[in-house]
């Protein structure tokens, strides 16, 4: 049930771009993206609902391909503050309610 994230880790220089992918073997209702810094709680970035929607804020955007059960997070012109571990959470529809299941995470480190 756990979605698969790739890559596992990426190192960037400030200003470079990165793409983080998330794929699931189950039909998805939505995809949530979170960033977690060391020792802190995961922080919500954005949610994408089914329909091939693309969203973004600032220089971080994401897409969701419902048919392929995949989502990608795009970070452009990365900043030092983008460093952290990024998790995709896939919302799976079940009989009694929806469950949010997270991937193992992608470690992103931005160097100056």
């Amino acid at each position: 049930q756990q979605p698969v994230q790739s890559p596992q880790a990426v190192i960037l220089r400030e200003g470079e771009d990165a793409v983080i992918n998330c794929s699931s073997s189950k039909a998805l209702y939505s995809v949530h993206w979170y960033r977690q810094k060391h020792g802190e709680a995961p922080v919500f970035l954005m949610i994408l609902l089914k329909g091939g929607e693309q969203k973004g804020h600032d220089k971080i955007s994401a897409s969701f391909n419902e048919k392929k059960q995949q989502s990608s997070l795009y970070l452009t012109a990365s900043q030092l503050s983008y460093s952290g571990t990024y998790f995709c959470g896939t919302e799976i529809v079940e009989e009694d309610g929806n469950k949010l299941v997270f991937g193992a995470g992608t470690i992103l480190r931005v160097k100056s």
Partner: protein
Amino acid sequence: GAGVSQSPRYKVAKRGQDVALRCDPISGHVSLFWYQQALGQGPEFLTYFQNEAQLDKSGLPSDRFFAERPEGSVSTLKIQRTQQEDSAVYLCASSLPSPEAFFGQGTRLTVV
């Protein structure tokens, strides 16, 4: 407070000891999730409540784990006869139920 509050922040337990971890969700949030996060891993789903009803407990690793939310607000995760493999950060999240889940800071449990 405005956010999800978890207590204690840190807990050291001797193997075989029982522990209780508390989660105060955001007021009015219907859904409450418990996750277990091992070092370097993504949050792994444990259980989910909608108000006081525990709708999914499929992620609880053994019958030593028990969660309750008797009045539909505060939740307690209890681990009986703790073992070393229970050492992890236990995260609680609440949501309206959707779209955004807000996480607490977590409780770091170390079993020695």
